[in-house]
């Protein structure tokens, strides 16, 4: 490992605090990661020295801000290895990116009787926008089933791909289970029938290198805040050929070419999909986060996080009455479990008292919880700054939970 973990943790000031009188152990990274100094400092610098509304401003600050904003788009293009920077649309987050596609794509390409295909392990954000689109367009939502390990059943997927399927929307990594889906195969099977694929990358991008051209996906979305970046900013990558054909999502400033009361012509990509004043500051914060992750190197991050996962599994397995939810062959950075005899909420409350932050509940994936017939799970999710010692503290905490409730 090329990075020094102690040094790395010092880049995240929040981590060194105490919670309930105990040193904080932060294992809720799938919900949001903490922010390194480089990101926070970039935000400060922008607001102290560079803040200005961008595009079409004649003055110095506006031109500078426009340039740095567009540079951030180029950094993001490089990060995802997209073909063109106008294929990068900044959004408020993954949810907004999916809503954009669900709304605009469906208006153009989805008609009554058509089908939209999602999977059984989606986050609500990759379910509800498609339900809404189906309702509006008179289309039918179909669901790729999963097996008891929490892996999608590809044979069933193949059967579900029909001449009526207009788009497939699948998560790269499940937020509740940690399953890494075989999206290369999912994409190529859909493409054999000329069907585009949207990938929800919110849980994948923090843990692995994503190359949208190699994947050949048609849309890819992620959020900045799960990738050490600021909240309120995210990315939609879309292939030019689709984005060109899709109508705008929202109307307003930035997205227009000419406005007359008799009619409006729309701006070109990417501005067509960025109505209103963009979130310049957070986009620059996101750029700093991308640089931070690139500096650490994705292969190093993955290798380290895989070690943590493996160690975590080994340790947690020793606990009595534990049931792991999601035991896919290919997983990353999420361990979801319940004690058969203890409610997840009770576990979460006691861990919180011990300064350990985990997530309990349905993780915005109620259909997934229903599938496993659990009210919710305890989810431990790792980031690059977590340590083995923290896993030991967690295991001690869980032993305490067992003595209290077991």
């Amino acid at each position, binding site marked *: 490992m090329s990075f020094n973990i102690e040094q790395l943790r010092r880049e995240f000031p929040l981590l060194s605090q105490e919670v*309930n009188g105990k040193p904080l152990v932060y294992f809720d990274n799938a919900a949001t990661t903490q922010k390194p100094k480089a990101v926070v400092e970039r935000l400060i610098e922008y607001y102290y020295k560079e803040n200005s509304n961008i595009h079409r401003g004649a003055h110095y600050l506006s031109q500078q801000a426009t340039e740095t904003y567009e540079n951030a788009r180029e950094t993001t293009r490089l990060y995802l290895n997209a073909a063109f920077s106008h294929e990068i649309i900044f959004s408020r987050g993954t949810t907004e990116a999916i809503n954009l596609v669900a709304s605009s794509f469906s208006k153009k390409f989805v008609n009554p009787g058509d089908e939209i295909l999602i999977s059984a392990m989606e986050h609500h954000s990759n379910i509800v926008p498609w339900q809404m689109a189906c309702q509006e367009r008179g289309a039918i939502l179909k669901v790729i089933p999963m097996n008891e390990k929490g892996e999608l059943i590809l044979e069933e997927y193949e059967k579900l791909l029909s001449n009526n399927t207009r788009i497939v929307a699948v998560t790269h990594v499940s937020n509740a289970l940690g399953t890494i889906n075989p999206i290369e195969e999912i994409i190529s099977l859909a493409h054999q029938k000329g069907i585009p694929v949207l990938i929800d990358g919110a849980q994948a991008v923090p843990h692995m290198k994503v190359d949208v051209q190699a994947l050949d996906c048609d849309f890819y979305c992620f959020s900045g805040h799960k990738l050490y970046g600021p909240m309120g900013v995210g990315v939609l990558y879309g292939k030019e050929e689709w984005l060109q054909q899709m109508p705008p999502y929202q109307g307003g400033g930035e997205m227009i070419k000419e406005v007359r009361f008799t009619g409006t012509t729309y701006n070109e990509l990417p501005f067509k999909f960025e109505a209103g004043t963009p979130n310049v500051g957070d986009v620059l914060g996101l750029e700093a986060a991308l640089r931070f992750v690139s500096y650490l190197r994705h292969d190093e991050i993955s290798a380290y996080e895989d070690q943590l996962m493996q160690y975590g599994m080994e340790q947690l397995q020793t606990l009595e009455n534990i049931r792991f939810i999601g035991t896919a062959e290919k997983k990353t950075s999420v361990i979801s479990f319940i004690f058969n005899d*203890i*409610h*997840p*909420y*009770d576990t*979460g*409350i*006691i861990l919180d*008292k011990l300064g350990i932050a985990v997530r*309990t*509940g*349905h993780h915005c994936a109620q259909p997934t919880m229903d599938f496993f017939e659990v*009210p*919710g799970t305890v989810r431990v999710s790792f980031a690059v700054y977590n340590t083995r010692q923290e896993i030991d503290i967690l295991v001690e905490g869980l032993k305490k939970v067992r003595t*209290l*409730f077991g």
Partner: protein
Amino acid sequence: MTIKEKEQEIISEFEMFDDWLDKYNYIIEIGKSVPVIDSQYKQDQYLIKGCQSQVWLHASMEDGRVIFKADSDALITRGIVGLLIRVLSNQPPQDIVDADLAFIDAIGLKEHLSPTRSNGLVNMIKQMKLYALAFKAKQQGT
């Protein structure tokens, strides 16, 4: 005993504990021991949904007093439910409506009544007061 007297009684009990672990142990014990609801009432119509844990609540009127029965799927929530029942059940409707339940804060469990916890307890208290209001209106109507 009035609501205030019951609250005071609980506060005194909790004063014995000097660390959080003992306190939670006690709540868990209450959660385990209180037979709070008949299974016939553990149905959707009595369910108060929280994101994290769920609460079932049933109310009836006997001799001018509201009788509450409740339950939860999580043990800590069930323990706090037990405390709320002890304080609010078998009381006149108006007293229930007026109760400020300051004891929750006094025994250091306020965090469990934050709406962000989403454990069903906030809605349960709201629902208890609504029942009390409804019974009061019924009383005055007859």
